[in-house]
């Protein structure tokens, strides 16, 4: 029998630093909620609004798979591996921090707010060689379809990471219904509604609501409004 947990939008942690308005789905920085530590290996889901030209100066990371998805605007990234890039809405960036990497992240546009999702997964292997990648998303392929944007496999669709996780993104017409099959036994799905209203396994979810579902092979999905956009994170439920 499947199990689930609901995370409504207004129950997320919130930190407004002026230039940075952040909502945390799980405990992060000074937001600590013992009931919100992780969903399987999914440890961080931050929904950040960053003012024009502002951002995070150089800071280190290690042993974490870090995925950044700009929803609006563009982010300028520089790291100690020599990568310097701008990641725009419609693209995805991944960084395996491994043994250690430093990077900076700034809103690339002075006059436009940046909205991004930053997602951290525990890696399935510690101390890997740090790596970086970014890709454009196939927006057309995600219309009425959960299009895979991340996997554990370098030769599969989307970016790849050091974890048995699959992310899919879809943008749906009102009334569209489908079923999502979980990719690996033992994985669960954390569904985050980027926009619109949807019903997942009978639960009605609005913008920025989320549901985590596990002990099942598949989930049912229906878009209740036009342009409903959902990110599915199919992740191992067991920590390594």
């Amino acid at each position, binding site marked *: 029998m499947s199990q689930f947990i609901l995370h409504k939008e207004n129950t997320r942690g919130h930190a407004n630093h002026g230039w940075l308005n952040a909502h945390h789905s799980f405990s992060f*920085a000074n937001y600590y909620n*013992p009931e919100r530590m992780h969903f399987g290996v999914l440890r961080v889901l931050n929904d950040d609004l960053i003012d024009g030209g502002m951002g995070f100066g150089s800071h280190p990371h290690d042993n974490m798979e870090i995925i950044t998805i700009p929803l609006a605007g563009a982010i300028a990234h520089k790291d100690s591996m020599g990568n310097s890039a701008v990641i725009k809405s419609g693209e995805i960036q991944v960084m395996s921090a491994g043994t*250690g990497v430093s990077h900076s992240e700034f809103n690339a546009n002075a006059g436009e707010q940046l909205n991004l999702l930053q997602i951290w997964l525990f890696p399935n292997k510690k101390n890997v060689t740090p790596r970086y990648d970014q890709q454009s998303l196939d927006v057309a392929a995600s219309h009425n379809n959960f299009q895979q944007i991340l996997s554990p496999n370098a030769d599969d669709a989307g970016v790849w990471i050091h974890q048995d996780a699959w992310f899919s993104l879809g943008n749906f017409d009102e009334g569209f219904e489908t079923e999502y099959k979980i990719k690996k036994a033992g994985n669960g799905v954390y569904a985050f509604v980027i926009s619109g209203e949807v019903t997942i396994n009978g639960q009605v979810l609005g913008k920025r609501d989320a549901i985590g579902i596990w002990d099942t092979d598949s989930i049912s999905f229906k878009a209740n409004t036009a342009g409903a956009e959902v990110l599915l994170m199919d992740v191992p439920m067991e920590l390594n």
Partner: protein
Amino acid sequence: MQTIILYIGRDTEITGVMNRLLNARPEWKGICVCTDEEAIEICQTQPIDLVLLGNGIDAACEKALRAKLTEVKPGLKIIQHYGGGSGLLYGEIMTAISQDF
């Protein structure tokens, strides 16, 4: 009362950042080192409450460190620190000090 936290990581830059982060809170005292020998010596001489294992410690070193540190101080809490910065640090420490190991 301060919680005295020993951080061990191989990357000197990250270790420096961790030292700053751990000592920024008055309720914590952080001691950050890069080598296992320093860690063991500190554990023998300081009243360490919690050990954070940071980046670059391979499986064999981790096993040996855990064995040695708990031999020096039975019952010592030793956890993996992920992320190399402030993002997860507070949650990791709060969880560790609230749990019986």
